[in-house]
């Protein structure tokens, strides 16, 4: 019974850790399904985390109260889109190598955001601590269900939003004309082109949506865990989200599962420390756990992930 109770709590913390990854992995899917590799997710998250901190703080100062984090969320989305445009311009318009361009995004985001923070906050390496951040919302009745209630229905608004985005991603990709076209552009741009689909337009959109969602992912970290932005607010979670996307085979539900898995293995690392037997385990092994677990699962998992066929290739109508 007690263990069951703990399970609910474990799920709860898992969701906290997973939310940012879920947003960002969904973003990655949009970009890569359109045929554009997005190793810049990390940088896009950084830009979102930054924008969220600055905008929320500004809104807070302007007396917007509880609405402030929502302002931050929207700012993160917009800032993510702006940043992702760099990637889109480089890879789609100038046919730059997509991996290289992603690295550029990561560099620019890391440099520019901290630089701006220092300019805006008198040389401080981090933004002011936010007072108005998201707090967990209990869903009436549902949150009273034992275990499940604690696990799933007592979460941050961003978590609910993330789950909604997963459903939306699934719907958009597999049920709407937009999704069909986006995927066709990533699978066979030549075919899409001859069907009258503007390859560039869809790739731009794919990359921009990835910017928006990764921005939200970054904002999630700022607005639910750190309450401020500094150089290591994101610290590698964009890469983990990238891994979740690949692990989830570029499918929204797969990526959701993978992101939850990463969140879970992060949560378990703290959870284990509650038990006495954990005292004998060197701390480093607990820290390692999420990553080693991932490798083991991947190595054991059957079936290779199949990336979109045209992933990574600039589209050149004259080339076959």
């Amino acid at each position, binding site marked *: 019974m007690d263990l069951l109770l*703990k399970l609910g*709590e474990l799920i*709860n*913390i898992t969701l*906290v*850790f997973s939310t940012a990854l879920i947003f960002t992995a969904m973003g990655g899917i949009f970009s890569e399904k359109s045929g554009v590799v997005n190793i810049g997710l990390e940088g896009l998250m950084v830009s979102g985390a930054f924008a969220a901190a600055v905008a929320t703080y500004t809104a807070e100062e302007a007396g917007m109260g509880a609405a402030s984090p929502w302002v931050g969320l929207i700012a993160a989305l917009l800032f993510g889109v702006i940043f992702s445009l760099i990637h889109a311009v480089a890879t789609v318009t100038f046919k730059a190598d997509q991996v290289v361009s992603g690295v550029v995004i990561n560099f620019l985001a890391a440099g520019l955001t901290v630089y701006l923070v220092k300019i805006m906050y008198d040389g*401080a*390496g*981090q933004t002011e*601590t936010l007072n108005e*951040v998201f*707090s*967990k919302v*209990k869903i009436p009745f549902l949150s009273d269900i034992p275990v499940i209630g604690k696990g799933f229905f007592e979460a941050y608004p961003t978590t609910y939003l993330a789950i909604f985005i997963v459903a939306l991603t699934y719907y958009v990709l597999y049920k709407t004309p937009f999704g069909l076209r986006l995927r066709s552009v990533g699978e066979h741009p030549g075919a899409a082109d001859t069907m009258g689909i503007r390859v560039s337009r869809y790739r731009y959109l794919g990359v921009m949506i990835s910017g928006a969602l990764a921005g939200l992912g970054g904002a999630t*970290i700022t607005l639910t*865990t*750190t*309450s*401020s932005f*500094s150089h*290591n*607010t994101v*610290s590698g979670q964009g890469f983990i989200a990238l891994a979740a996307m690949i692990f989830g085979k570029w499918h929204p539900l797969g990526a959701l599962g993978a992101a939850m898995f990463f969140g879970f293995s*992060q*949560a378990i690392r*703290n*959870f284990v*420390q*509650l038990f006495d037997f954990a005292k004998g385990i060197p*701390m*480093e092994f607990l*820290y390692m756990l999420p990553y080693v677990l991932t490798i083991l699962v991947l190595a054991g998992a059957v079936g290779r992930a199949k990336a979109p066929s045209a992933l990574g290739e600039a589209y050149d109508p004259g080339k076959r």
Partner: protein
Amino acid sequence: QEGAAGDKPAAEKPSGSKKAEGFKVGMVTDIGGVNDKSFNQSAWEGLKKVEADTGASVKYLQSKSDADFIPNLNQYIKDKYNLTWGIGFLMGDAIKTVATQNPDAKLAIIDNVVEAPNVESVTFAEHEGAYLVGVVAGLTTKTNNIGFVGGLDIPVIKRFEAGFREGVKAVNPNAKLTINYTGAFDKPDLGKAAAATIYNDGADIVFHAAGATGNGVFNEAKDRVKSGKKVWVIGVDKDQSLEFGDDVTLTSMIKRVDQAVIRVTTDLIDGKFQGGKVVTLGLKDDGVGLPETSTKNVPADVLKKVDEYKAKIISGEIKVPEK
């Protein structure tokens, strides 16, 4: 109690005098910046105060990696700074190297002991202060369940852990104490998750000694307080109720890094630099302790107990272990 110690070195001098004009003091932080809301910030505030009080010019350099420590220190040496601070345990080796290579330069370090004739080392008896907040925690907990979140598993933080543990044990031997090391001083997300786990387990008080990672502990506590649960955080280094509010901050284990910086720096200005010496600031020097704001959340009888234990530690009746 802090006030008494706080004013001594600076207040005795006529403030605003420009007697140290042309005097240059530099400090190098490790990867955490000067506004980490705790340790580094406290040090920098100390230097700023020296600047305001004496007219000395002060400067800091934030390191991007371990490899930067030495070049950053050397930057000051090369520019003929009168005193160069290394802030934090991790700067120990770099200070040692630079001090040896530049016997004429004067350096100082916080939280680590460097044996060199031109280095003054300042350490704190964190275990003594932690003992007192342990007493507070032990007496305040309603659930008999208390947590500790540490940054890196290093001697300084071990002192926090040991003192806290002993303090809790002294007043409440039955309380459960969960220890969690996050492995970082600069990851609020890890601090938050650690705190969440500990609170979920039934703890109602968490003491953190984790720098910016501890900000996550506060965030988690705030979350819970907002949703109507009563949980506390015990802050570290500075009076963190000023940053994170009284509704979550039970008290803080203050470490007067600022005072240490001010004291050593003014000593130097006054020509009293004690190279080669180790200054350890404990309860009796008011180098560690509880802030006055503690009265807001800690009941008077508990504070009375704290004072009793404080006296015993100062008198040597209680010897707080460092590990």
